[in-house]
């Protein structure tokens, strides 16, 4: 096992990175903030995949590469593998993590009864922040696959929290 840092280091760095781009730099341009956050993830994924595949033969096909992301790559990042992999055999893969680490502490109270003052809840805003946090891991996956020679688009679905599904669409 190589060097480690406390999980709080990466968690708080990500919270602050997202908040910097969404609230300070591009408060009124969420699509620009999203693009920057995704691009930071892309760089990280690209570099990590480079490091983790250095001593490995090239992958023979897309499925092999996707399996590498689900197993070895995910384990390096989250100490667990992707729980479920599905594909339509036409270039779309769905990678589901049943308890995605970076979302486990995110929560808001939706019930109005606990307000200590008359402040109106801003749930919509918080939902937006939550989805902003997904651009980073999507970028990581896209960067990692791109380093393996597989251009693709990645999106995330969190309709089933704390499970998170990443949808990878490989570009023909």
């Amino acid at each position, binding site marked *: 096992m190589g060097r480690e840092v406390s999980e709080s280091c990466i968690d708080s760095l990500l919270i602050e990175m997202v908040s910097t781009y969404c609230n300070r730099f591009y408060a009124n341009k969420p699509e620009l903030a999203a693009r920057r956050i995704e691009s930071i993830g892309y760089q990280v994924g690209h570099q990590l995949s480079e490091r983790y595949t250095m001593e490995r033969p090239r992958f023979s096909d897309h499925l092999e590469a996707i399996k590498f992301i689900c197993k070895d790559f995910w384990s390096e990042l989250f100490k667990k593998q992707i729980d479920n992999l599905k594909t339509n055999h036409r270039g779309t893969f769905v990678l589901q993590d049943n308890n995605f680490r970076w979302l486990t*502490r995110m929560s808001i*109270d939706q019930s109005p009864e*606990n307000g200590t003052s008359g*402040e109106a809840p801003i749930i919509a805003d918080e939902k937006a922040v939550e989805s902003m946090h997904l651009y980073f891991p999507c970028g990581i996956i896209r960067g990692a696959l791109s380093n393996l020679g597989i251009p693709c688009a990645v999106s995330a679905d969190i309709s089933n929290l704390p499970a998170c599904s990443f949808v990878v669409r490989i570009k023909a």
Partner: protein
Amino acid sequence: MQFFGGSEISPSPPVPTATANNAHMMYIFNRNGVCLLYREWNRPLHTLNAQQDHKLMFGLLFSLKSLTAKMDPINAEKGNLGIPQLPGQGCSFHSFRTNTYKLSFMETPSGIKFILITNPRTGDLRETLKYIYNLYVEYVAKNALYTPGTLIRCELFNTALDQYVRSIA
């Protein structure tokens, strides 16, 4: 009972000795006197509106702290009555008891105040409040959707807190 993915949490929760719900309500204030959280489990009587109630509670603690420090017969670091203290300066109190309730109090060096009102027969709750501080760290401070200094509206924190106070004896 496990709250967080396999990590050790300190201090570990004191072992529950009864199952009765002894807790009436809880307040969390920050150092600016903002009531970040008020949670109520069993309070049949309300005499003030919420805002007055919170203000009264904060004022009581503020005065009591400066009073207890002033009365200290041992420690030289007393300060003068009414002169502002640094957080953690001087002695402090951790609970008082009336014939109908007990108030337990913990202030962190970062100025966060935890106040728990329980049945007067409740034992020492200092470890309990420390544990609640750990819950605060996990579910409030580390929650990406929470902005420091704002009111706490975190579902996971409320759930963990409700579940935990039920075990207080």
